[in-house]
C-alpha cells in the first residue's frame, strides 16, 4: 500500500485497492464460519466469536475507507500511509478479538493503538495534533496499567493463557483461598481500567470528546465503533473465560453495572450541552459504552449475545451518522450543529439518513437500535437488574433530547444556502449500506441475532 502510493498518482485507486484487499479476508471469514481451532499454542483462536468480530471490524474498515475517499483530499501527502495505517489498525483489532492469551492481547492492542495515534493527528492542524498527543499519552498510560494488571494475574496463576488462568482461578475458588489473594482482585481492577480506556467508559473517558473532535472524521467514525467493538470482544473473552466463575462474576458484574450506570448518565447529560456534532457523538459514544456494560453486568448468554447484536447495530448507526457528517462537513466546512440548519431542504436523502441513524441511537422503532436495547435490557431484567434497566431507559429518554435537536435543526428552519451537498458514489454506497442495515436489523433482526447467539455459545455459563 505504501509502496503503491509512491507510484500511483490517482489516489482514488488506492482506496479501491484497499477495499478489494479487504474483501479477501471478509470472504475467508464467511467461509470459515462454523469451525473451531487454535494455533500457535493457543495464541490465535478461531471460533465463532472471533469470526463475528473479524467480520464486523473488516466491514467497519471497508465502510470507513469507502467514505474517506472524498476526505483524503485534505491530506497533502501520505494518502497511501493513511489507508495502510487503517489496515494495520484493523489487523490489530481483529487479533485482539481472536487471541486466547494475555500477551497477545497486549501486543494486538498496541499495534492497533499506535496506528490510531498516527491516524488521529493526520490533519496536522493544532486540534488534530493535540488530539493525537492526548490519545497517545492517555493510551500509553492505560496500556501500562493494563500490563500491570496482567502481570499480577500472571504472577498469581503462572500462566497467560486464558483457559489455563480459568483453571487456576477455579482451583483457588474451590479451595476457598480466593479472598486471600488480593492480587487477583487488583489484577482484575487494573485490567478493567486498561480496557475501560479503550471502550470509553467512565472514569476513563476524558480523552473522548477532544480526540473525537480533533481527529479526521472518518477516523473518528472508525474509533467510535471499531475500537469499542474490539474492546468489548476482549473484555468478554477475558472476563468470561479467565474470570468466569460464578463467585467472581458477581463482583465484576456489579462493577460493570455501576460503571455502566455512571457512564451512560454522564455521557448523556454532558452531551445535552454540546454544540459541536462530533463532540456530541463522542459523549453519545460514552453513553453507549454504558448501555453495552449493562449487557456485561447481565451475566448470561442472553447478555452476551445482546452485546454482540448491540455492537452490530451501534456500528451501523454510528457509521451511518458519521458518514453523513463527513459529506455535510466537507461542504459546509464546519462541525457545528447550527450549521446543519435546513439541511433537509438542501440534501433530503442525506438528512434523512442522518436522522434515521440518530433515531436508531435513541432506540426508537423501527430501527435496529430499538431491538438492540430491548434485547440487552431483557437480559438485564432476567438477572434481577431492574434498577439498572430503569436508569438505562431514563437515559435513553435524556438522549432523545440532544439527538432530536440535530434532527429538528435539519428539518425545521431555513438553510443558509440552497446548494445541495455533493457526495461521491462510494460515499452514497456506504450510506445506503449502513442505513438499510439499520432498518433491516430493526424489522428483521432474527438473522444477526442468531449469528450473535451462536458466536457466544462457546462461553460455558
Amino acid at each position, binding site marked *: 500500500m505504501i509502496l503503491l502510493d509512491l507510484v500511483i498518482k490517482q489516489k482514488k485507486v488506492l482506496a479501491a485497492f484497499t477495499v478489494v484487499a479487504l474483501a479477501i479476508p471478509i470472504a475467508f471469514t464467511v467461509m470459515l464460519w462454523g469451525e473451531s481451532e487454535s494455533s500457535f499454542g493457543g495464541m490465535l483462536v478461531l471460533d465463532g466469536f472471533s469470526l463475528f468480530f473479524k467480520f464486523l471490524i473488516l466491514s467497519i474498515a471497508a465502510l470507513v475507507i469507502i467514505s474517506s475517499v472524498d476526505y483524503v483530499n485534505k491530506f497533502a501527502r501520505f494518502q497511501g500511509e493513511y489507508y495502510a495505517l487503517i489496515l494495520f489498525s484493523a489487523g490489530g483489532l481483529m487479533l485482539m478479538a481472536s487471541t486466547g492469551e494475555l500477551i497477545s492481547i497486549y501486543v494486538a492492542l498496541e499495534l492497533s493503538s499506535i496506528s490510531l495515534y498516527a491516524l488521529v493527528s493526520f490533519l496536522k492542524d493544532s486540534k488534530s495534533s493535540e488530539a493525537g498527543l492526548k490519545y497517545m499519552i492517555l493510551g500509553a498510560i492505560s496500556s501500562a496499567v493494563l500490563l500491570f494488571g496482567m502481570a499480577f494475574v500472571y504472577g498469581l496463576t503462572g500462566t497467560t493463557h486464558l483457559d489455563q488462568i480459568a483453571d487456576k482461578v477455579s482451583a483457588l475458588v474451590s479451595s476457598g483461598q480466593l479472598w486471600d489473594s488480593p492480587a487477583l482482585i487488583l489484577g482484575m481492577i487494573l485490567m478493567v481500567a486498561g480496557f475501560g480506556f479503550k471502550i470509553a467508559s467512565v472514569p476513563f473517558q476524558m480523552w473522548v470528546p477532544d480526540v473525537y473532535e480533533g481527529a479526521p472524521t472518518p477516523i473518528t467514525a472508525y474509533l467510535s465503533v471499531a475500537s469499542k467493538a474490539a474492546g468489548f470482544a476482549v473484555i468478554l473473552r477475558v472476563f468470561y473465560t479467565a474470570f468466569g466463575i460464578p463467585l467472581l462474576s458477581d463482583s465484576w458484574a456489579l462493577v460493570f453495572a455501576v460503571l455502566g450506570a455512571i457512564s451512560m448518565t454522564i455521557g448523556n447529560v454532558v452531551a445535552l450541552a454540546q454544540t459541536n456534532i462530533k463532540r456530541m457523538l463522542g459523549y453519545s459514544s460514552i453513553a453507549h459504552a454504558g448501555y453495552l456494560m449493562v449487557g456485561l453486568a447481565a451475566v448470561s448468554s*442472553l447478555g452476551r*449475545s445482546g452485546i454482540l447484536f448491540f455492537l452490530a447495530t451501534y456500528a451501523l448507526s454510528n457509521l451511518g451518522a458519521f458518514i453523513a457528517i463527513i459529506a455535510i462537513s466537507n461542504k459546509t466546512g464546519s462541525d457545528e450543529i447550527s450549521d446543519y440548519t435546513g439541511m433537509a431542504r438542501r440534501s433530503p436523502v442525506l438528512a434523512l439518513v442522518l436522522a434515521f441513524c440518530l*433515531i436508531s441511537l435513541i432506540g*426508537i*422503532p*423501527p430501527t435496529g437500535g*430499538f*431491538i438492540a436495547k*430491548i*434485547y440487552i*435490557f*431483557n437480559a438485564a*431484567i*432476567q438477572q*434481577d437488574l*431492574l434498577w439498572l*434497566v*430503569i436508569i438505562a*431507559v*431514563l437515559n*435513553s*429518554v435524556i438522549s*432523545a*433530547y440532544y439527538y*432530536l435537536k440535530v*434532527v*429538528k435543526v435539519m*428539518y*425545521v428552519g431555513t438553510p443558509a444556502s440552497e446548494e445541495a451537498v455533493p457526495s461521491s458514489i462510494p460515499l452514497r454506497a456506504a450510506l445506503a449500506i449502513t442505513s438499510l442495515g439499520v432498518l433491516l436489523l430493526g424489522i428483521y*433482526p*432474527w438473522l444477526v*441475532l*442468531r449469528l450473535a*447467539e451462536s458466536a457466544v455459545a462457546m462461553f460455558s455459563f
Partner: protein
Amino acid sequence: MNIESIHPLTIILFLPTVAALLIALFAKQPRTIKVSAAVFTFIAFALSVYLFVIFDRDGGLQFVEKAKWINSINAQYYLGVDGLSLPMVILTTFLGFVAVFVSWKINVRTKEYFIWLLILETGILGVFMSLDLLLFFLFWEVELIPMYMLISIWGTPPPLGRKEYSAIKFVVYTLFGSAFMLAGILSLYFSTPAPHTFDMVAIASGGAAWLIPAIPFTAIFFLIFIAFAIKLPTFPLHTWLPDAHTDAPTAVSVILAGVLLKMGAYGMIRLVAGFGDGGLVPGVAERYAPVLVAFAVVSVLYGAAATVRQTDLKRLIAYSSVSHMGFVMLGIFALNQLSITGAALQMFSHGLITGLLFAMVGLVYDKTHQRMIPNLGGLARQMPVITVVFSIAGLAALGLPTTIGFAAEFTVFLGSFTSEAFHGIQTCVVLAALGIVVGAGYILWMLERVFYRAPLEKYNGVPDANHMEKAYIFAFVVLIMLFGVYPKLLLDVIGPVFTSWG
C-alpha cells in the same frame, strides 16, 4: 371466501405505510399526494367498517393473525381485535381518512406532511391491534417521531404558539413514560413461566394462578401504568397536552385528541380488565382503586376549572380533553362492568366529538385568522354552517341527550355510582358530575362569545365552510347523532367483552 385468509388486519395496519412509501417515491404534485392519501385511507376505513359489520358480537377475539417475529425471546407478530379494540380501529381509520381532508390546505412541504401523517396512522392502529406486549410497545413508540415532525414543522409558530417547544415536550414526556413501561413489560415477561412469552392473551387469561411475579405485581402495574397515565392524560401528568394540542396543525390535533389519547385509556383497560377474563396484571387495580379514582376526579375538576380560564379557543378545547378523559379513567377504575363499558363508549364518543371540535377550531382559524376568544364574536351571521356544527359539537361535548356524549357519560356515571369498588365512590361520582356542570358552563360561554353576539364588522365577508369541509363535518355530526340515538350499535360490540368480568 373466508375473510381471515386475506389477513385483513395486516392490510389495514400497513396500508397507510404502503401509501406513505408510494407517495415518497412517486408522487410529485400536491394534488396527487392528497388524493392518493385519501384513497388509501378510505380503503382502510372501508375495510374496517366491513370487519365491524361481520364481527361476531359474542365471539371474543377475532381476525387473529400470528406469525414468528423474534424467536429467541418468543416475541410474535400477533394481531387481533375484540369488542374493545374494533371500535378504536374504526375510529382511527375514520379520523385518518378525515384528517387527509382537514389537511387539504397544507401546501408547504406537502409530501413530507402526508408521509408522516400516514406513518402515524399505522403506529396508532398497531397499538390497538397488537396482542403481543413487545409489538404493542414497538407501535407505541412508532408514533413518537411522526408526531414530533408534524408538530415541530407544521405547527403554530411564535408568537401565537411554540411549536418546537411543544413538540420536544411531547416526545420527552411520552418517552419518559415509555421508559417505565418497558421495564414493566419486561418484568411481566419474566413473570410468565418459562419459556417466557409476551403473549397478552395468555397472560391475561392465566392471571395470578399462572404468573410468578419477578417483582411485586404492584410494581409491574405502576411501571406500565405510568406510561398510560401520561398518555391519557391524568392530572398531574397532563402538562404536555395543552401545549401539544394547541400548537399542532389542525389535522394532527384531531388525531392527537381523537385517538392518541385513547391509546392510554386502551392500555389501562387492558391492564385492569384484559380481554374479559382478567387484567394483564392481576389484583392491583382493586387495591388502588380509591387512589386512582381520586386522581380521575381531580383530573375532571381541574381540567374543567382550567378550561374556564382559557382565552385561546384551541387551548380551551385541549383542556376540556383533560376533563373528559378523566371520565374515562373514572369509569375504568370504578371496576364495574357497566362503568368500564361506559368508559369504552366514552373513548369512542370523545374521539368523535373532540375530533370534530378541533376540526371546527381549525376552520374558524382558517377563515378568520383569529383564535383568541376576545377577538372573535357574532360569527353566526357570517358563518352559519360552521356555527351550527360547532354548536352541535359543543352540546355533544357537554353531554346533551341524543348525542353520543350523553350516552357515554350517562353509562359511566350509572356504572360508577352503582359500583362496589370501595366505600365513598358515590361521593367521587357526584364530584365528577360537577365537572359536567362546569363543562356546560365553558362550552355555552364559549359558543356565546364566539358566535352568538352582535356581528363584528371585520368579519363581514369571511367565507363559510366549502363543500369538502361541509362534507366531513356533516359526517361527524351524523355519526355523533346516530350513536347518540342508537348507541346499541356500539354497545352490542363493546358490552360482551366485559360480561364475564367482575
